């Protein structure tokens, strides 16, 4: 039974990784063929690095991910604070349900709904070039906020109310009490919200597809456009690079986590 279960795990993981492995191997194939490996070459990587559009899309993706994650985290954290303090259950429940809509809805519905809003606004102000960084930023902030709330809200619920009250009794203004007493307690939630927002933004394709313009392309949109009609081997190279980067980050995060746990265990 033990061997059988190991065998099952192995088979599923081999199948899961086979396409990705093939993709990486054939990104080094010198002939533009998917069926036969004729020789090692880095020409597709060279082609990719010479492609300015790819580089611009990468930069766009990073700028968008950082700015949307920061904005979503600020709005979401203060939102969680305000909602946590709010007495009316109805308002609280209503705001929470609306906030979670993008998390429940399929991305395509979130995408088309925001597109309809932007189209309406663009018609209203008679703007020809309304879609672009601004619409992308709004959309990414919007779908990141629920994830920020999800990681920050539990921290607020764990907070000891009396601490903030004590700080205020000792002469802090409520704002100062928040920044000095409560903020340090919820920082871990804020950081994980920030990271979640950042990765969600980098990864998003579907929503961006509906609210973007050709002038502002992110990396997933670039991959989509490049792979729409024909096979492009520089996209294999790009995908391989992305997989490699993710692998390094995941190992680094897990390794660092393991180290910390060991240190704690030693203490």
């Amino acid at each position, binding site marked *: 039974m033990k061997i059988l*279960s*190991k065998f*099952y*795990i192995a088979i*599923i*993981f081999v199948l*899961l*990784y086979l*396409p*990705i492995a093939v*993709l990486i191997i*054939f990104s080094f194939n010198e002939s533009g*063929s*998917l*069926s*036969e490996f004729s020789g090692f070459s880095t020409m597709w990587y060279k082609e990719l690095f010479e492609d300015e559009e790819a580089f611009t899309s990468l930069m766009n993706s990073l700028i968008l991910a950082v700015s949307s994650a920061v904005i979503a985290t600020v709005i979401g954290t*203060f*939102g*969680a*604070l*305000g*909602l946590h*303090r*709010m007495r009316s259950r109805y308002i609280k429940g209503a*705001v929470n349900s*609306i906030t979670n*809509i*993008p998390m429940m809805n*399929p*991305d*395509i*519905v979130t995408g*088309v*709904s*925001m597109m*309809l*809003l932007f189209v309406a606004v663009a018609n209203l102000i008679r703007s020809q070039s309304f879609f672009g960084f601004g619409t992308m930023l709004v*959309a990414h*902030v*919007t779908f990141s*906020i629920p994830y920020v709330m999800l990681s920050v809200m539990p921290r607020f619920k764990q907070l000891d109310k009396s601490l903030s*009250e004590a700080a205020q009794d000792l002469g802090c*203004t*409520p*704002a100062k009490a928040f920044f000095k007493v409560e903020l340090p307690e919820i920082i871990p939630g804020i950081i994980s919200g920030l990271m979640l927002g950042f*990765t969600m933004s980098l*990864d998003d*394709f*579907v929503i961006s*597809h509906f609210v973007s313009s050709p002038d502002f392309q992110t990396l997933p949109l670039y*991959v*989509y456009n490049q*792979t729409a009609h024909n*096979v492009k081997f520089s996209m294999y190279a790009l*995908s391989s690079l*992305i*997989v490699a980067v*993710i*692998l390094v980050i*995941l190992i680094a995060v897990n390794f660092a986590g393991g180290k910390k746990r060991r240190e704690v265990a030693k203490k």
Partner: protein
Amino acid sequence: MRKKSFFQKAAAVPHIMWVIMFIAAPMLFVLYFALTDAEGKFSFSNIAELSKYGNVFILSIAFALIATVICLLIGYPLAYFMSRQSERAQKILMVLVMLPMWCNLLIRTYALMALLDNGGLLNSLLVKLGLDKVSIVGTNFGVILGMVYDFLPYMVLPIFTSMTKLDKRYIEASHDLGCNNWQTMTKVIMPLTVSGVISGITMVFVPSISTFYISQKLGAGKIDLVGDTIERLFQNTSTYGVGAAMSLIMMILILISVGIMNRFSDDEDKTVKRGGIR
């Protein structure tokens, strides 16, 4: 009770404004476009128009259901076996499950397509072995395979999480009380991991029913699902209304099925708890 300061009252205002403007208002726009005609008058013409797309809906629901069931059948044993490995192995396996989740869906789909395509590695190997080529890309099977491949990790992870949270003493107790492995599985482990299964099903079903990239790539443009149709309808201003109606119907379908499933999971939890007291 201390009087609430302006700061505390104002903290949630940007958040509330944001979700009203950018979540609630867009949903109302979907509703408006779905329920008005070209002149902006209230009408059900867009909804009526959807009858043309009946088979698209049926196909999408069928594909998503099949993909979800296959993911569950593959993923549940996988999560179970994973949870029985050593702690170190579990950690490595967990990273291996998460890595594909972190890779963009476009990349995973594209990689699978490259492997299975008519001129891909699989077919060239088959030809070398003297076998016939198989055409997977462009068939229903190809699209379902793509859904299973892309979303399997989303099924495994929540089930695995609820497996690791499960108190091992329940399993020991069930063995002590004379259950064999199969009875322990069906009477103890399965009921206690229902919440993981429910979130796994949701996380596979929702993206499967709404996908358009998988059907574009692995269906080679021959297979039209709800996602493809919505995407196409929103490329042309004159068909926004029908597209909005279609999105609305899909949204309602998903809300209903998720709602039913959550109710189901609540009931299960209750029976488990009741059983525990008895």
